[in-house]
């Protein structure tokens, strides 16, 4: 019996273009307050558009509000319920963060505002650096990377720069086969070849495999800790030693820091560089795909190579202390994006840190780990655990038992939708066939988690007793499973007047 959800009336809605009618307007600008000169006298005709912007819709404000409000109701969201996507840390996004990030004094300031007129912004760029350095146990932080993947790229570049300064950039980056796809992709951009090492029987780094590949051509090991299986690399110190002794550096993918904040610090483990996903561990909203922020923290040795500009504090002649942006960074890897990073995301993350403080951050970590273990404990009789061990913030099962009835991970995921939940992460990490990856985060209470456990238990039962029910799921959504194969074979990637009933499902 489905306890958490029902079905309810829900509005259909076409594409915004289908609401367009000649002459409708949704805006009102002030009258032009300077004399208007014929456009052609200012810009050569050949440079002017000749399509009258025909593609853009003509709609009223009411149309816009109705359109986007309606389609929003088709989404599941953290504010509606548990979002147990493993590796994604879908925690609660505090409304206070949203509010402060919108203060007029922030949103209306231009990135090239002279330093003396933007001291507030500069403080907000420095303060998170200090906190994140302490949290990671590393020496310096750059807030510039726009997301985790860019943090990886930036971090590996600082490593490369460092090695170059030592005389040899080296050739390889070692990445466990359990790593997230962005790891190898980022290594490639940095001009490194990827050496994949097989994880050990317990899913952790196999030291022998590691020793076997580590040599003087290896620039770095890229390690996710806790691993994408949610387990801590217990031999992390040994691992770092092995890499360091061979003259390489250790990059840690910090996407799973929600398991560690306040409990242990990468810097203390021997890690040289780490990126943080502020849109995971530090509660900034995912926004249906972004934006995020992927700051990196590095050791003292790597600090000179961080992207420019850097915020530095100076004491003026009159003794007053001022912050300024320093562009003079001769050893820097360079810039990884224009301006100063995803500022509005950084403000939210800082707001989260000051709201929680040391105790709150640790409490969050403890609760996230507690919740994951609680789920692991209650589901282990119904689903096959991928790797025995001590899960931290997330747990990975497989569909092994359900396959016996022709039910696969994807079916289980879709059936969870009928039970009122967003599915867990599926088929990741790749080393786990039919992976079912569950991360509750600290934002879930026991009741919601128990409902989730009930749902998965009930689905396990359905898989045995009425497998078709699961394989045809979801049944309670406005549309069913979509034919992704055809979509990829004959891609329709934009609206054209022809396709006029698009989206108006129902």
């Amino acid at each position, binding site marked *: 019996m489905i306890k958490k959800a029902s079905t309810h009336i829900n509005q259909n809605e076409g594409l915004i273009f289908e609401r367009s009618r000649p002459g409708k307007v*949704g805006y009102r600008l002030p009258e032009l307050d300077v004399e208007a000169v014929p456009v052609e006298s200012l810009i050569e005709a050949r440079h002017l558009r000749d399509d009258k912007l025909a593609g853009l819709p003509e709609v009223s404000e009411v149309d816009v509000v109705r359109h986007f409000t309606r389609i929003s109701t088709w989404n599941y969201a953290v504010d509606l319920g548990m979002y147990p996507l493993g590796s994604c840390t879908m925690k609660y996004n505090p409304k206070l963060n949203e509010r402060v990030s919108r203060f007029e004094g922030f949103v*209306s300031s231009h990135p090239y505002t002279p330093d003396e007129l933007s001291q507030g912004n500069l403080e907000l760029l420095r303060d998170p650096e200090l906190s994140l350095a302490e949290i990671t146990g590393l020496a310096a932080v750059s807030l510039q990377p726009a997301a985790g993947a860019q943090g990886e790229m930036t971090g590996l570049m600082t490593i490369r720069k460092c090695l170059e300064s030592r005389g040899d950039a080296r050739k390889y980056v070692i990445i466990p086969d359990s790593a997230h796809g962005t790891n190898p992709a980022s290594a*490639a951009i940095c001009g490194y070849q990827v050496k994949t090492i097989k994880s050990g029987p317990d899913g952790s780094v196999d030291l022998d495999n590691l020793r076997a590949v580590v040599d003087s051509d290896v620039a770095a090991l890229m390690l996710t800790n806790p691993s994408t299986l949610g387990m801590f690399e217990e031999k992390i110190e040994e691992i770092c030693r092995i890499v360091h002794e061979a003259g390489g550096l250790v990059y840690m993918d910090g996407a799973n820091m929600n398991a560690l904040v306040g409990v242990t610090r990468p810097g203390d483990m021997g890690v040289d560089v780490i990126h943080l996903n502020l849109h995971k561990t530090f509660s900034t909203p995912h*926004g249906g795909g972004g934006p995020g922020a992927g700051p990196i923290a590095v050791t003292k040795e790597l600090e000179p190579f961080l992207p420019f500009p850097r915020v530095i504090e100076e004491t003026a002649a009159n003794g007053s202390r001022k912050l300024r942006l320093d562009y003079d960074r001769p050893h820097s890897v360079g810039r990884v994006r224009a301006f100063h990073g995803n500022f509005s995301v950084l403000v939210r993350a800082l707001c989260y840190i000051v709201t929680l403080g040391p105790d709150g951050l640790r409490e969050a970590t403890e609760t996230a780990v507690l919740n994951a273990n609680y789920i692991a404990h209650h589901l282990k009789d119904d689903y096959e655990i991928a790797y025995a061990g001590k899960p931290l913030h997330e747990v990975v099962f497989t569909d092994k038992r359900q396959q016996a009835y022709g039910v696969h991970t994807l079916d289980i995921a879709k059936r969870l939708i009928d039970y009122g939940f967003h599915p867990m992460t599926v088929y990741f990490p790749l080393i786990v066939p039919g992976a079912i990856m569950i991360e509750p985060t600290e934002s879930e209470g026991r009741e919601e988690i128990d409902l989730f456990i009930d749902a998965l238990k009930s689905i396990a039962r359905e898989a045995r007793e009425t497998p078709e029910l699961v394989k045809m799921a979801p049944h309670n959504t406005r549309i069913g499973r979509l034919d992704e194969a055809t979509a990829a074979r004959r891609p329709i990637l934009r609206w054209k007047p022809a396709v006029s009933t698009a989206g108006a499902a129902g």
Partner: protein
Amino acid sequence: MRYIPNSPSERELMLREMGLKSVDELFRGIPANLQLKRPLQIPAALSESDTLGYFRKMAEKNETPTTGRKMASFLGAGAYNHFIPTVIDTLISRSEFYTSYTPYQPEISQGTLQAIFEFQTMICDLTGMDVSNASLYDGSTATAEAVLMAERVTGRTKVAIAGNLHPEYIEVVDTYIKNAGISKVILPFDGQNGTLRLDSLADIGADIGAVIVQSPNFFGGIEELQKIADATHRIGALFVVVVSEAMSLGLLQSPGRAGADIVCGETQSFGIPLSFGGSYCGFFATREKFQRQIPGRLVGMAHDDQGRSGFVLTLATREQHIRREKATSNICTNQGLYALMSTVYLSTMGRAGLREAAEQNLQKAHYAARLISGIAGYKLRFGASFFNEFVISAPRPATEVLERLREQDIIGGLELSRFFGGRNSGMENEILVCVTETTTRQDIDRLVSALAVIGS
């Protein structure tokens, strides 16, 4: 802690159910010597009202056009102060939008998916291209991705970049190509017009995989895209047009019509606040034939077994989570919510609004240019026709002029010496001035009379 819905006793209970005595046991997988024995040394938790007070104080330490001293600002250079309809924030504040994840589960993500599909469509229309992705980090990284894609497509490891491309974009491209085995040549711009020197294209080698040009260029000037396209295609290279001031697309010929193969840039001008430089939203559009080489996410239309149409993430085999080191890009999280902001902006302004806004930029910028160039000692540095930005040459060093203007609560623009100090000198007195539809005639007139005084 108010963000944790488990009561202390519930946590106790859960531990006991698992046969654990304390939370510490949960971390037994972490070697004892690595466990932090002390609290983090960061400031103690603030109450909600103190947190608000702290950020209010920070906000008040900034001087902006609408807060504090209410500076009249003429800053542009890749970040533009355009009018932002109120409905945008109202709509992106629907938690169904901003607290949802990347739409990997289409049955409960159609809202996000349809919005991205609409974004892709609008970008295609504005740029004159066939395919747009779901966004990239920003205009600079979109430009870098274009360079990487050109190399994938052409196999050529050299690119030619216009010297009047946004300097920070060039810096970012440098960062991205440095280790990717790609080299660049800088194409000089004309000293008189500030636009790309077409003759420089005459003798570029056939080893060039792409020619990257920004229009309007960093100085605000409109480039001869058609001619550059021809020259570029003659050597079989890809023509990449960068648009950092998307508002110009409301008035200017679409790069697609002018022959671009890739059009990329920044949608900040479409409903995204300045926010000290971020978050913004990069866009990336190209020809259909290159659609499987495009970086980032793509949304496509699909149908269910009852024929109901909907949308899905598609062509995922290009992406890192499947292709790993062979992916077309390492990007995963993009700027989804900000692509939505631009989609709402373009829906609200629509066909008429975008045109009207763009024309107001044009008219006001030229009004300002006429007046300033009329002041003794000041002149327009470049001759090319421009949209809403232009460079003036002042009778004194730009930094000095700007400092004097600040005393009168005016941010007069950007001193070009900041970027063109060394190599291309002769820019000590040059100021890049931006005027948008939000700049009042009164502010322009204030700037003009202030400049006159400073100049004399």
